[in-house]
């Protein structure tokens, strides 16, 4: 019996439940990276993660400037929480982060979704969360395949070389 045989990953199912800039991008980078490696990819957006596929919100995601101990000023000095609470600071910081990502050739959210589906990745929205936020398919980006239940999602996660990732 050989234990050295490689068993490469064949499918990933990624769940995005949070709507901050970094949470949504973590999902998108991992999903796109999987598609680029030829791994079958399903992405499931739920709860606040739905912001990442909601037309009205997806291009204006924020990163938290309060309650975020990893937040730094340019130069590496810790970002004062008091400052983070001032009007406009979070929007400004988020805008700066988006422009820094653009420099690394990380696309805006809508273009990122298109890159994922261009390679065959599938994007789904959670039915329960869509109902809760009173959204409809038309409110979601065109690359969203459909609104599905969690049962449907698990149905997509079959196969013994499949991993579910919760970002």
């Amino acid at each position: 019996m050989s234990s050295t045989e490689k068993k490469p990953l064949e499918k990933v199912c990624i769940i995005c439940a949070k709507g901050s800039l970094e949470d949504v991008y973590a999902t998108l980078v991992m999903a796109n990276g999987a598609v680029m490696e030829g791994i079958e990819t399903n992405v499931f957006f739920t709860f606040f993660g739905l912001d990442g596929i909601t037309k009205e919100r997806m291009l204006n995601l924020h990163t938290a400037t309060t309650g975020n101990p990893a937040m730094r000023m340019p130069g590496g000095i810790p970002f004062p929480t008091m400052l983070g609470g001032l009007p406009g600071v979070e929007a400004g910081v988020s805008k700066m982060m988006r422009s820094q990502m653009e420099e690394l050739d990380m696309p805006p959210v809508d273009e990122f979704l298109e890159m994922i589906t261009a390679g065959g990745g599938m994007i789904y929205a959670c039915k329960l969360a869509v109902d809760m936020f009173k959204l409809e398919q038309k409110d979601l980006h065109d690359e969203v395949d459909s609104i599905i239940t969690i049962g449907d999602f698990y149905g997509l996660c079959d196969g013994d070389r499949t991993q579910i990732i919760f970002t």
Partner: protein
Amino acid sequence: MAIKTIAGAQVNVSEEGYLEDMNEWNPEIAKEIASEVGIELTDKHFEVLNYLRDKTEEGESLTIRKVGKSGITDIKGLYTLFPKGPLKFSSKIAGIPKPASCV
């Protein structure tokens, strides 16, 4: 690093089969590496390969987004040309190093 004979030429390749020196590349080598990953090269493929080689020579890091905006093909087209490895397989066939980018 190992020496491998591809299309009758002795070339240095990395453990994963990427050419160590992009100047050792020629179209015949490209065709043979491509057939190893099940791709038959067309003129369109070579347009992408030449673009990748030019950009690498200029010292740019490559992403599928950049190739998608090159005017040669869009991202969907890139996946059609190089299924399951739009940057990985195309880089390998173009004789350039393994892509260091995550997008």
